[in-house]
């Protein structure tokens, strides 16, 4: 990558260097000047290098908790950050990634100039090349031949603009985001149960509930700023953690249920059996509001607590205990994340959690909801505004009223709206592999590390005629791109993020992007110009706020109603939760905390729906050649594929390399000790020289590898099997074998 040029200076002579070094070698001074404390008005006494002159309020750009923070700026450089004590989400505290986020802005490895085939070019050239070649592909092979993969990391305004650009301006058929790799099952599950997406609860529920069940959610590592909520409620709350591993979150639980991988459907069915058997649900009340109750009951005839225990790996007592706790709780919140979503049955597992909540009345009231904790900082923004699984505003491609409404709002012919969602992420990869998709534009994501079965993806990328990658940092994916577009990153852009509890918070630019990097919004507008759709689709848009203004109108009246949310209102409230209709005096300043408080759902008749679910066996199950089950996940020090956190020394120091957790019994069987380097193989690929950690965090027969690392990439092993509804990958169960690496 090109770096900034500097004027060459004649190298000092050897003697000169020696003389210069002498005071240092002799230790005449101790370098105290570099470690001087100053009294900074906004910080108190602090080391001078971190003292800020101005503060910019923003929202963290890593996970979906959506912590409010302030970037401290001095001389145009982000020198520090602080948790925003006024922000309703995190009340002034941050996790280690947030606390070092200013270092990310200045980190090495930024993309500074557009590149075409490895050659630095100007923006005009880059736009021309991409536009001409995509147009040529479309002319020759049709709009099916170019696809876009975006992210959950842009601001909402950019997502809204990008959706219009891709689906209406460029007229592309296939557009999806990496949110399909993390939250799609929650989206699909909510849609099946309630008619639309949208997490019904809020973070306050974690405090108000008398029972919180964290289902496949290791918040202590992955959403650290949610843990104070449950820790602070210990006096009136029971915390249950359902997770095969003894995670950090399991350690703060009152009850840990070490469910067998993929055993959670059996556990949920067992819970439903007990709830029904012991009269802990009011079936008549349920039938009055919910469809599918009798089908569900009929399905439960096939189930018993005994079967649930057998298939979940838990005791019958543990299942009964959980069911009774849920059935008797005044307020029960069941919150889940990737342990549920990352499954070939993710969507259906989500519906089962929703079913438990619906039948026990744990929805639409304080402390009670089936709550999906999102992954990325603005996965929610793209779920609502995106043009992927649904049209903007949770509108269906096949719903005539929605189509008519959008066409009217945008002043375009209804026929220009796509009639179907197009290919989802894994299906785009398949189409690349088969040569149907020849041009791919990747924005803000690093599939080479994050997509399952990397060997196949690498092969697929080689089939492409044109791979365009737009990102802030050099990544394994930018390295194989034909065209690289340098984007501004968090701290350099304006807009909004929407967090897991539907809270819209402001993101603000604190510093200028380096080199030629431009905001994604600017890049999209420039492409719109090239594609001749700027004036039509983005009339008068100059700043992201213009996009926000249009999105407010487009979302009005929809479940995700932003019409009452303005930048000013966000500033006043710290963050505003949708739905927030304009001019509705009943909605508080901070928006609507919970959905479905009137028990009216977004399905026909306002009725929710429950679905019977039968577990499927694990496809790539352990067998003699691959006797261990691999689970993947994350660690608190790193963010996704480490394109950011891998560049921050303090975080790298805390978690410097990938590891594989192996139970002591398995370690003895395979001759492994902690610290050994091991080779892990699946049918699809191999991870070599990965550090062994012998620990009882994992069960015998199971191993765990965090997915963050490019070298020792867990996704060389994972099974590329996908949920048929959400298309989310089954990251968490595949068969591997392990052996000591030879030197």
């Amino acid at each position, binding site marked *: 990558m090109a770096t900034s040029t500097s004027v060459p200076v004649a190298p000092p002579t050897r003697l000169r260097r020696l003389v210069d070094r002498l005071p240092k070698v002799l230790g*005449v001074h*101790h370098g*105290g000047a570099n470690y001087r404390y100053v009294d900074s008005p906004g910080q108190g006494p602090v080391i001078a290098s971190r003292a800020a002159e101005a503060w910019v309020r923003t929202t963290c750009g890593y996970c979906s908790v959506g912590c409010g923070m302030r970037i401290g700026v001095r001389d145009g450089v982000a020198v520090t950050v602080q948790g925003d004590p006024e922000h309703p989400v995190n009340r002034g505290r941050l996790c280690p990634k947030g606390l070092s986020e200013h270092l990310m802005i200045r980190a090495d490895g930024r993309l500074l100039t557009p590149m075409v085939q490895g050659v630095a070019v100007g923006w005009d050239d880059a736009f021309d090349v991409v536009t001409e070649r995509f147009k040529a592909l479309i002319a020759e092979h049709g709009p099916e031949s170019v696809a876009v993969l975006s992210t959950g990391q842009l601001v909402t305004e950019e997502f809204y603009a990008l959706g219009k650009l891709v689906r209406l301006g460029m007229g592309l058929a296939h557009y999806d985001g990496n949110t399909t790799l993390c939250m799609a099952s929650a989206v699909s599950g909510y849609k099946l149960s309630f008619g639309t997406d949208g997490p019904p609860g809020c973070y306050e529920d974690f405090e108000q509930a008398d029972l919180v069940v964290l289902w496949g959610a290791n918040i202590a590592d992955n959403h650290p700023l949610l*843990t*104070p909520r449950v820790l602070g409620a210990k006096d009136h709350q029971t915390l249950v953690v359902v997770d095969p591993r*003894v995670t*950090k979150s399991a350690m703060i639980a009152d009850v840990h249920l070490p469910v067998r991988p993929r055993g959670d459907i059996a556990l949920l069915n067992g819970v439903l059996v007990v709830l029904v058997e012991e009269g802990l649900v009011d079936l008549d009340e349920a039938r009055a509001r919910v469809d599918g109750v009798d089908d569900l009951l009929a399905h439960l005839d096939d189930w018993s607590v005994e079967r649930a225990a057998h298939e979940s790996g838990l005791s019958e007592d543990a299942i009964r205990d959980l069911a009774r706790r849920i059935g008797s709780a005044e307020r029960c919140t069941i919150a889940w994340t990737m342990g549920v979503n990352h499954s070939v049955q993710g969507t259906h597992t989500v519906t089962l959690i929703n079913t438990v909540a619906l039948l026990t009345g744990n929805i639409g009231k304080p402390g009670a909801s089936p709550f999906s904790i999102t992954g990325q900082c603005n996965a929610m923004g793209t779920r609502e505004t995106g043009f992927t699984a649904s049209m903007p505003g949770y509108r269906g491609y096949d719903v005539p009223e929605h189509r008519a409404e959008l066409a009217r709002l945008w002043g375009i012919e209804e026929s220009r709206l796509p009639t179907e969602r197009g290919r989802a992420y894994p299906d785009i990869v398949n189409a690349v592999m088969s040569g149907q998709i020849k041009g791919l534009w990747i924005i803000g994501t690093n599939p080479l590390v994050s997509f399952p079965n990397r060997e196949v993806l690498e092969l697929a990328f080689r089939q492409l005629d044109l791979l365009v990658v737009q990102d802030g940092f050099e990544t394994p994916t930018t390295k194989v791109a034909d065209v690289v577009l340098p984007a501004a990153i968090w701290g350099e852009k304006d807009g909004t993020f929407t967090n897991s509890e539907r809270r819209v918070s402001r993101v603000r630019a604190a510093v200028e992007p380096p080199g030629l990097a431009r905001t994604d919004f600017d890049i999209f507008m420039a492409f719109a110009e090239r594609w001749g759709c700027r004036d039509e689709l983005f009339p008068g848009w100059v700043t992201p706020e213009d996009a926000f203004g249009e999105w407010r109108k487009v979302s009005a009246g929809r479940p995700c109603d932003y019409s009452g949310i303005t930048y000013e209102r966000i500033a006043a409230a710290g963050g505003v939760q949708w739905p927030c209709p304009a001019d509705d005096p009943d909605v508080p300043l901070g928006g609507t905390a919970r959905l479905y408080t009137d028990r009216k759902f977004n399905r026909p008749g306002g009725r929710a729906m429950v679905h019977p679910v039968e577990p499927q066996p694990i496809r790539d199950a352990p067998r003699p050649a691959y006797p261990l089950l691999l689970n993947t996940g994350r660690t608190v020090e790193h963010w996704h594929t480490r394109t950011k956190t891998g560049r921050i020394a303090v975080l790298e120091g805390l978690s410097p*390399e990938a590891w594989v957790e192996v139970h002591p019994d398995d370690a003895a069987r395979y001759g492994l000790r902690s610290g050994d380097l091991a080779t892990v193989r699946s049918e699809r690929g191999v991870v070599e020289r990965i550090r062994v950690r012998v620990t009882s965090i994992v069960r*015998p027969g199971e191993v765990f590898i965090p997915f963050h690392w490019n070298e020792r990439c867990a996704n060389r092993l994972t099974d590329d099997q996908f949920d048929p509804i959400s298309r989310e990958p089954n990251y968490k169960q595949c068969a591997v074998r392990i052996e000591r690496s030879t030197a």
Partner: protein
Amino acid sequence: MSIRPRGLVEDESPPRSRTVEVEPDGHRPELLALDAGEQYRFGFDMGACIGCHSCEVACAEQNGLPAGTVWRRVGEIEGGDHPFTRRFHLSMSCNHCLEPACLQGCPTGAYIKLDNGIVAHQADDCIGCQYCTWNCPYQVPAFQPDRRIVTKCDMCQPRLAEGLKPACVGACPTNAITVEKVNVAEWRADHSAADAPELPDSSITLSTTRITLPEGVPLETFAASSWNLRPEHPHWPLVWLTVLSQVALGVSATASTTTHRFTAFALAAVAMAGALLHLGRPAHAWKALRGLRRSWLSREVAALSVYAGAAAGAVVVPELTVPAAVLGGVGVYASARLYVVPGRPAWNSPLTIVRFFATALATGPALTGHVELAAVGAVLAVFASVANWLRLSRRDEQSWIGSVQLELHWFRRWSIVRFALVALGVVAAIAGGSAVGIAAALIAAEVVARWLFFVTVVPLNMPGSFWRHTVAGQR
């Protein structure tokens, strides 16, 4: 491998309830003013800590610490078997001890205990000798390479002075870390709340950090760092300082010619000059003489310097030979004593003193032609080593048995080399071999032995994370 903590239960599925107050709005309460007889200290609630490492990052940012210099660390402790595995995290920076070993050993007086109890390190007075890093049983003081001095946690003293919380306390999402007041006399009488599994005994330095242990800590625990038994830094200048000064002593004590006396002086002088290379700030080496009343390191510097002077005098005035040898003995004694510290169990024994004098006996006399005497010294040195291994094998803590494992397994080749050299020297001495050859073999044996002495010591330390010692500078 565990210390028996308070409130311990063996129940495999114990209740896990606890209350953590989450402070609203993150405002900063004023710290309470200290009453007479009180000092500030850290409190740590192990059950509230989720191992997020925010405190470490906040500390590094507050103090602008370069990569690799860490004032606060979070360790991990594990016990039990799946699904009843228990894991705990221990966040620790300086314990601001009542009897700080760092302060007591410091040759320059760089450490002071402030009125509010904080053990403060003053950079101006630090010469980078790193003796405090050997003394602290928690491995708190850290040598900071860019400054060539030791630095450490001062509880964000400038913030405390304004009534503000230290950065780590302010950053902890679960309020697991606090700053509180403690009555010094009461704590001195009962400091058991400073103990935790895998942590050095608080009675060594009277650590003031109050640790609240969660319920149900298993009887058997291990630190996540325990797999990674690593050699320590060899400190080559100190290998030369100690071996050469001991060779010099052996020569002085058996000197009969001017050549012998000059050899003793030259060795002592080179040893002292070489020692300067050990310091981060040799320009300030003279400050090492400040701590004569307290620090064995100061006494070593003083005694060996005086010895070198006397040895020089003896070259001119042979009558000074015996006084010089006596002064050399004092120097070697001071030199040995400074290694006898609780923070390094492998050294913390009179055997260290025996070994240092045995080295003098094994080497110097060989240079003055007393090869039989040297052979006795070499055998004595070997016996002292073996005795030390037997001593260290009695306890299964890594800081004890680990030293033996390093010497006899990790460095087994070098141990064999050492024994072979001793055997060669002793056999040659008995068989009447060349004195020069015998001296060469025995001196080489002692250099190898001394290098092993430095690299095989396993310091006491707080329990570490799985990654301890995998990155440069990690303690």
